[in-house]
Each structure stands twice: as C-alpha cells, then as structure tokens.
C-alpha cells in the first residue's frame, strides 16, 4: 500500500511537510500539470474537515481596515485580458498580485512584451518575476539585455528591517550553492554585469534575502527570502 509519485507529492504539499523550495516547485508545476493539480485538489478536499478542529481566534479589529486599504480605490475593472487596457493593467498592483499568485506573471510578460515594445530596442532573452514566498506580491522584475548583463527593476518595494541589507542571489540547477549578485536597495533599479558567471539558463533561480547589514557574512544566504523567482526564456 503506497502512493505513486504524484499522489505522494500532492499529499506532502497539502499536509504541509515540504520545504520552502519544494513548495515553490510544486506551485510552479501546478498551472501546467493537470494530474498534480487534480491530486492536490483531491487531498485538499479530503483533509479540509480537519480545520474544523481548530479553535477560532479573533484577529485585531484593525485587520479589516488594513485589508480595505490594500484594495484598489475603485471597483476593479475586470480582468487584465480586456483589450485596450494594457497600460492600466501594467500599472495595477492588483493585476500583478493576481498574476503572480496564479503563476502566470512571467508568461503574460512574455506574451505582451514584444507587442507593446516594453523592452525595445534590445529584446531581452530572459525574464524573471521575483515574488514573495507567500506568492501574492511581486517585488522585482529581472530582465536580461544580453546573457552577460541583467537589470533588476523594482515593482513594489518592501522596506528593509533596520540594520539589515537586501542581498541578491542566483543559482542555476547545476550549481551547488547560490552566488551573490550583490546588495540591492528597495525601489532602486540596478544593472549587474554577469561577467564572472556562466550565461543565464532557463529556470535559473533568483532570490533576494534579508541579510545582516552589509551582506551575508558567510557568502551564502543566511536570512529569510523576501522575493524569489525563476528565469523564463523569452
């Protein structure tokens, strides 16, 4: 009596025992893997009754106000696919959150970028949308103008805790550990030469972590991940 690989992965994902990296991998697979998606939905339905065991807890009265403040000021114009609304959705935090949460952000940018000439004149080869690990708010977009140079562009900056620095890292699948691309400042675009590194590969991991002031003392990420994403070839 044992589960096949997909069932096991779905069970571990819904049960919650996967690591941060494994969770991200599953969430990236879900939009394009119907079998895994079905398995996850089945496990969610099976285990859902357990949440009835949890004692309800009153959140602070200010929470609704906070949520309301984050909602768009006017009722949202329906979906981003509406023709003619390109500049509107590009500037809409709601759209970016939606897109990131459903895992389609990178794909949408790929589809739209050439038609609206966002990245003209140089056509980028890779694109990365860096999303918070909770998966609802993209913070940065990475764009390469050549395989040896990348731009990190802020979308929705998050503040840095006091006495901490943000550090930018990358790791291709074949590398044993992430490599530092240097410190970044919230809200500030930065261009980084990649001369010392192999060319960017598809699915290469990029992340921004919160490190001690002036960067990780060990040369490896030590703090929590603020944003994370993988490269998509355009």
């Amino acid at each position, binding site marked *: *009596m*044992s*589960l096949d690989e997909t*069932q*096991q992965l779905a*069970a*571990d994902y819904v*049960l*919650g*025992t*996967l*690591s*941060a990296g494994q*969770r991200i991998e599953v969430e990236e697979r879900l939009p394009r893997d119907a079998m895994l998606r079905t398995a996850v*939905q089945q496990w*969610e*339905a*099976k*285990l*859902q*009754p*357990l*949440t*009835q*065991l*949890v*004692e*309800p*807890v*009153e*959140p*602070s009265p200010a*929470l*609704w106000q*906070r*949520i*309301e403040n*984050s*909602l768009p000021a006017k*009722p*949202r*114009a*329906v*979906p981003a696919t509406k023709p003619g609304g390109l500049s509107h959705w590009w500037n809409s935090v*709601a*759209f970016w*959150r*939606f897109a990131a*949460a*459903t895992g389609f952000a990178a794909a949408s940018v790929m589809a739209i970028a050439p038609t609206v000439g966002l990245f003209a004149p140089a056509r980028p080869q890779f694109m990365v949308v860096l999303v*918070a*690990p*909770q*998966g*609802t*708010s993209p913070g940065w977009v990475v764009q390469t103008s050549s395989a040896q140079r990348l731009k990190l562009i802020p979308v929705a900056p998050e503040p840095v*805790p006091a006495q901490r620095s943000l550090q930018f890292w990358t790791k291709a699948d074949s590398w044993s550990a992430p490599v530092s691309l240097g410190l970044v400042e919230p809200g500030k675009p930065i261009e980084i030469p990649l001369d010392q590194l192999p060319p960017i590969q598809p699915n290469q991991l990029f992340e921004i972590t919160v490190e001690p002031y002036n960067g990780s003392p060990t040369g490896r990420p030590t*703090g*929590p*991940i603020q944003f994370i994403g993988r490269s998509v070839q355009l």
Partner: protein
Amino acid sequence: MPAGRRRVAPASRLRQTLGYHRRQPCRVPHRRGAWCPIDPLVRPTPVPSNDPTPFDHNAALAACARGDQSALRRLYERENRFLMGVALRIVRDRAAAEDVLHDAFMAIWNRANTFDPHRGEGRGWMCSIVRNGALSAVRASARTVSVDEEFLDELQDADPQAAPDMLDAFSMRSTLGQLDHCLERLDVAKRNCVLLAYLDGCTHTEIAERLSAPLGSVKAWIRRGMASLKECLA
C-alpha cells in the same frame, strides 16, 4: 533522554505533545533565534460550532469577481475568526498570522474570478489559500528554527502506541464524518503525525522533536498514514 520522557504521566505528556510545556521557537524572521511560548489562544479546547445561519460563499466570491468590495467584507466578517485560527496554529504569532490573513484576502479578491464552484466549495478554497500562505510563510523562515537532526535520528524508536492520542484533545470530532472513521483506523503515532503536520504546520523534524521519535520513523508513519487515508477515503 527518551526513556525518561516516556515515564511522564500521560496527561502531562499530552500537554507536552500539544506544545504547552515546550517553549516553541519563534517562526517569524524579525525575532530570529528568540524563543517564545506557544500563543495561549491556540489551545485545543472545545470549539464553538460554526455559525449555523446559511451563507453562500460561492455567490459572495462571484460578487468579488465582479468588483463588489462589500462581498469581500461579508466573507471577511463571516470567516475571519475561523481563518485566523487556522493561520495562527501554523505560524504561532499573532502579527504573522494577521499578515497571512491580509495577503490571503488580497489573493481571494484578486483571484475570485478564477474560483470554479464545480471544482470545490468556496469556503474550502479560501481556507486553502490561507493554509498555503501560512505554510509558505513558516517554511520561508525555516532557517530560524534550530534543529538537531542527528539527535533525532539517534533516538530509540518510541513506542508509537504509548503516546497520547492528539485527536482525543479535540471535541467536534463528529463533524469530521468519514475522515474521523479513517483517522480512527490509523494507529496513534500515524494519526498524531498527520494532525501535527496538517493543523500545526510542523515539519518532519518538528514532529520528531514533539513526539520524541526518530526522524526516519516519523517520515515512514506519515507516508503510510497518508496512503491508508487515501485508501480509506476513496
């Protein structure tokens, strides 16, 4: 000292299993390395029954998809205590749980137009968004949790039947329906593992610590437990 621990009286052992005597490591990045007691509100005491007045979650989600913010407010007012309880048990910190709820309600608002009532019930869909947000949040800061995997591997295999049954700590079991019957068929060790993972968001290592059991056994119990749950719930 597994032998010593096993001599603890069952009632105390149960409290220990559920996290009363142990001081839990904080799981939020801004208090890294600090230790804090589990939130006293996260007690497995009798659960008030859910609001019996009818509420159409699916219709409210459809209204959200049309841009009706009052529908989101109604969903919030209806479910905030339930969802806060679910998030708080996993992240164990009120501020972090409220962050999870904030982001989850943003995701619910932004993704309401992707909700498909044919594939599940609206309340469960919202609950999955909250659980996934909470799990991603604690896993993303996983580096802050200190563990001694070697110690856990060296532990003698605990007598899985001797541990108190976590399910006994909960009332409201009747609402679990078929799931209660299937959990009943698992032995105590497997049942505790499933509950600690699903409700408390514990990793394999944390479960091993809480049950004073070797890591390998915990992994095997979970694998076999989930396989027999699937068979029973089929």
